[in-house]
């Protein structure tokens, strides 16, 4: 960031070390200044978008700041953190956040690869199948949540309850007894189409001759899968995991509109817990402390991910 700025100021000096121009260019004087000038709007706005809330959050997290008692602000050190971290809901929320993230990624990657392979080769109605399959991705999360909560999962009138009845089983009260699982179903339903489509596109660039040769040599399907398909899909899998992580760490609307985090903390993730502190308990100080904890968690996951799959993304 700062390097970028100083480098821009030195643009008419000697060649800056930060840039390695791959090819000689005729407009050399433009080349030192231009790349940074073009980057600047994005970098500066994103930097502000990151740093301003961050600094404010750090400040709020260290003071007494209740939205209902605006007058009483004072430095209270780490008390907000202590309160947030020792709240029994905290660990539940961490576990729920990671469970949600992990389950949805596993479901969508495994399911997406399977569906991608299923519709890779032509069959009657493939175009329509593609269109129908991608549809859930376009559904607004609040609609998704209400659709599942009422029409699908209602224990009396919901479609699932009717199916359970049909088979003579006792219908399940999904929101009460399986709240986190219900949220996982909703979120996975939304993201499975996304993963599937990325894998379908990636499969189209498979080397058909290689595949044909493997089949000729009598490679069984599992072998083809292991040695040809999965390696080919490696980068796409990395991309799917990356994008989904970005969105899944902060699942909010599905919880807000269905379970409200409950019963108890059964379906409260970190994002929802912070929301509860800020807007239901009006305690902006504790919420800010929680937000910083969330930021740390996000960074831990990010570092972990980038280590694991980052090289696939370059």
């Amino acid at each position, binding site marked *: 960031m700062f390097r970028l700025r100083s480098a821009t100021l030195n643009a008419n000096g000697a060649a800056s070390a930060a840039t390695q121009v791959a090819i000689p260019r005729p407009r050399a004087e*433009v*080349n030192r200044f231009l790349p940074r000038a073009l*980057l600047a709007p994005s970098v500066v706005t994103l930097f502000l978008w990151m740093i*301003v809330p961050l600094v404010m959050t750090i400040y709020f997290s260290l003071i007494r700041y209740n939205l209902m008692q605006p007058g009483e602000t004072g430095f209270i050190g780490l008390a907000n953190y202590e309160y947030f971290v020792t709240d029994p809901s905290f660990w539940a929320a961490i576990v729920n956040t990671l469970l949600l993230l992990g389950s949805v990624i596993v479901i969508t990657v495994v399911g997406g690869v399977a569906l991608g392979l299923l519709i890779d080769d032509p069959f009657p109605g493939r175009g329509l199948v593609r269109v129908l399959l991608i549809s859930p991705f376009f*559904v607004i999360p609040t609609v998704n949540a209400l659709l599942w909560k009422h*029409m699908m999962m209602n224990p009396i009138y919901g479609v699932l309850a009717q199916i359970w009845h049909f088979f003579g089983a006792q219908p399940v009260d999904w929101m009460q007894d399986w709240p986190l699982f219900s949220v996982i179903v909703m979120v996975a339903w939304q993201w499975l189409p996304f993963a599937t489509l990325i894998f379908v596109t990636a499969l189209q660039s498979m080397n058909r001759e290689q595949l044909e040769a493997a089949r000729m040599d009598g490679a069984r399907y599992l072998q083809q899968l292991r040695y040809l398909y999965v390696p080919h899909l490696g*980068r*796409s899998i990395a991309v799917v995991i990356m994008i989904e992580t970005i969105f899944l760490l902060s699942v909010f609307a599905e919880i807000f509109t269905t379970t409200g985090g409950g019963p108890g903390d059964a379906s409260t993730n970190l994002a929802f817990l912070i929301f509860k502190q800020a807007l239901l308990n009006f305690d902006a100080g504790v919420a800010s402390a929680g937000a910083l904890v969330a930021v740390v968690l996000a960074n831990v996951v990010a570092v972990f991910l980038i280590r694991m799959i980052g090289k696939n993304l370059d």
Partner: protein
Amino acid sequence: MAPKPPITAALVGRTVVAWAVTLVLFFPLGWLVLTAFKTEMQAISVPPLLFFTPTLENFAEVQARSDYLLYATNSVITSVISTLLGLAIAFPAAYSMAFFRSKWTRDLLMWMLSTKMMPAVGALVPIYVLAQTAGLLDTRVALIIVFMLSNLPIMVWMLYSSLRDIPHEILEAARMDGATLWQEFRRVLLPLGMGGLFSTGLLCLVLAWNEAFWSLNLTSAKAGTLATMIASYSSPEGLFWAKLSCASFMAIAPIVVFGWFSQRQLVQGLTFGAVK
């Protein structure tokens, strides 16, 4: 193109399985649409009704209860403008990263993506306070800014991976022929990068349309988007599934239909350079 595949047991099996899975996955959405045309009694009938006389009364009721057109307008304005603004500042950045690679390009990209990983809720209190101070609560401007910023990392990343596939030699040739920067952009980069620009725009439009966290927390009656309109139907007031379905149907129909027509272009850009 490839010849028509012969009808084999494998093909029949694959077709049946593919259609079965697709219908199961699409079922909730199809059910939502059916319910939108039912009366409230039909909506909760046991066993569920598959055939019935459709009614349009829900549509009138939804419009009367919550001003659908206002929310829809807000959704269109915020998602379109935030996407266009975002593209305008992300494209130069992506261009710079793709054609003037340096040793910190990768780190910069990862940093941008990492800003997206922080849960939005982490910034809720400050952004709320800032919006309040600036008098932007419940305005479209606030949503446009927030949507643009939260999609920006994804935009840069997608555009970068599509521009990176354009061979440097083409740009070189244009420069050798004396093209100015503007000509280079207008005649070479834009036509070649159009696909990526298009699919990035489509994805961000969908993401902005479906954004629910900030619209729930920063807006209410005036600047609320369709995502917030639906949330107001979540409070239990007796049985109201037909109206809920109808409101949901109206909220998602524009973006789903839009998505159907653009899915091919959308998907091409979604590979993020994962396909070589």
